[in-house]
């Protein structure tokens, strides 16, 4: 049985049993883990499979969060319908923005690609900050509440799982598909892959759009759980989060970034509850983890599991 599948089955079992064992506070944290797991995995489709390091992925998470929030707050649909449409709106909006950002960004590679994604993110951050009528400006959008029973954490948890689970499966199929193997080839040798008849940019752009769309979905799942969206979610510092999660968990494993997300979120909660210097402690812990496990947490597992 391969590593990813073992991990997936294990994660699903734990995930299903969790709400029974946890307080509302920890269920809320579990929802955050679920959302950020999707965020980190979607980010890693670019980094781990396509070899593209985006410095601006928070833009798509943020756009998805705003799109979901606006659907619930301003669409005028009945609350249930608006809520049901929110994830779709988030994906569509994030995909559309990713198509524009990606169109320009994939024209460059390496650090220049990263810089372009960074620049677009700052642009979107400024829009979120200044388009007060739509986004609420600096105050963000607050007081979002899922309709009916979904307002209860345990129920929302099931909704989050039922949304993110299939999304992860779609991405899993994608990375193992002809498109996925082509992405890996492109990462390994972008010049050679042209000479098997692959148009590099269009494949990179497609990966960018898919990755952005699912990051957007993650943003909406998280926003509707936390009840608010702030422009800071699109700020450049926020783009470090999926990078750290992916590297922490391991970029060469499909679910590695999801594990990284879980470790990151839980560490942050535990440590920030104990000391106001939590970013310092987090920094030291992440530094130690990365130095001791250069291939990430799943890399450790693989090394031990290897024949």
């Amino acid at each position, binding site marked *: 049985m391969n590593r990813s599948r073992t991990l997936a089955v294990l994660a699903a079992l734990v995930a299903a049993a969790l709400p029974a064992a946890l307080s509302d506070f920890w269920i809320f944290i579990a929802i955050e883990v679920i959302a950020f797991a999707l965020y980190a995995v979607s980010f890693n489709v670019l980094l781990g499979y396509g070899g593209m390091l985006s410095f601006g992925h928070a833009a798509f998470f943020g756009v998805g969060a705003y799109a979901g929030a606006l659907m619930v707050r301003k669409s005028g649909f009945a609350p249930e319908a608006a809520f049901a449409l929110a994830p779709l709106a988030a994906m569509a909006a994030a995909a559309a923005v990713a198509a524009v950002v990606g169109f320009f960004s994939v024209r460059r590679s390496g650090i220049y690609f990263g810089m372009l994604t960074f620049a677009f993110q700052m642009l979107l951050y400024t829009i979120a900050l200044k388009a007060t009528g739509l986004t609420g400006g600096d105050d963000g959008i607050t007081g979002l509440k899922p309709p009916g029973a979904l307002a209860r954490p345990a129920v929302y948890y099931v909704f989050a799982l039922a949304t993110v689970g299939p999304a992860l499966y779609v991405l899993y199929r994608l990375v193992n598909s002809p498109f996925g193997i082509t992405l890996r080839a492109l990462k390994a040798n972008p010049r050679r892959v042209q*000479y098997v008849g692959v148009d590099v940019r269009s494949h990179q752009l497609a990966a960018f759009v898919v990755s952005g769309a699912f990051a957007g979905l993650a943003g909406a799942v998280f926003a509707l759980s936390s009840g608010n969206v702030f422009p800071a979610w699109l700020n450049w510092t926020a783009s470090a989060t999926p990078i750290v999660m992916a590297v922490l968990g391991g970029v060469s494993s499909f679910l590695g970034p999801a594990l990284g997300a879980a470790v990151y979120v839980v560490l942050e909660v535990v440590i920030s509850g104990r000391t106001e210097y939590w970013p310092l402690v987090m920094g030291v812990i992440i530094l130690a983890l990365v130095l001791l496990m250069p291939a990430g947490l799943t890399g450790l597992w693989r090394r031990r599991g290897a024949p």
Partner: protein
Amino acid sequence: MRADMTPILHVRGLARRFGGLQALGGVDLEVARGEFRAIIGPNGAGKSTFFNTITGLIRPDAGSVTFAGRDVTGMAPDDLVRAGMGRTFQITSVFADLSAQENVQVALLAHARQSWRMWARAAALHAERAAELLALVGLAGSEARHAGTLAHGDQKRLELAIALAGEPTLLLLDEPTAGMAAQERIESISLVHRVARALGVSCVFTEHDMAVVFAVATRITVLHQGRVLAEGTPAEVRANPQVQQVYLGESVIAEGVHA
């Protein structure tokens, strides 16, 4: 079966300048179908630039490239490959992180225009054909090996299998024996020769080792300072005084296969 008389490759007046250096000063080349053409010349003669200009990596300043009767001047690499032109690189160029099998599968998927499929399982597609191609180049049993861990000679073989996956009608090989020991070089070019013959693929290759050239080339083109200095059968080229002049001190030309 009637032989197609259109040249597989027809290059006219190909020129390219880099700053003050005229790397290609108007090169003409005509390669008939079924040929095994060697392009030789001292270092800096323009062989690599010539190859890279034909295969779309470098845009020519002037001149044209006609491939199987179709003008392909300045065409992008992926379009050229889909039109049936394959190439290998002087510095071995495989997908190091992928298995040997996956290396060939990527090429087969692209050739079948399936690289956009996002739901099917890639591992199950073209697996048999990939194994066949690996066996053809002598890599049976290495399917699951990561390409980056293969020996240098085996990576060259793998690169050949990747190029063949696109069912090319013309294969351009840039120094196919670079970095190999003398004995291995002859074996390697013989493999290319045998496979190309079997599949009916025309070949153009650049080469430094004259023993390799004289072992397999049907015709030889000599480049010197970005121009064609001489062209002809191996015997004609060897007897050409101008060629001997350029290769002064490199007695290999005169000695030919004994080198």
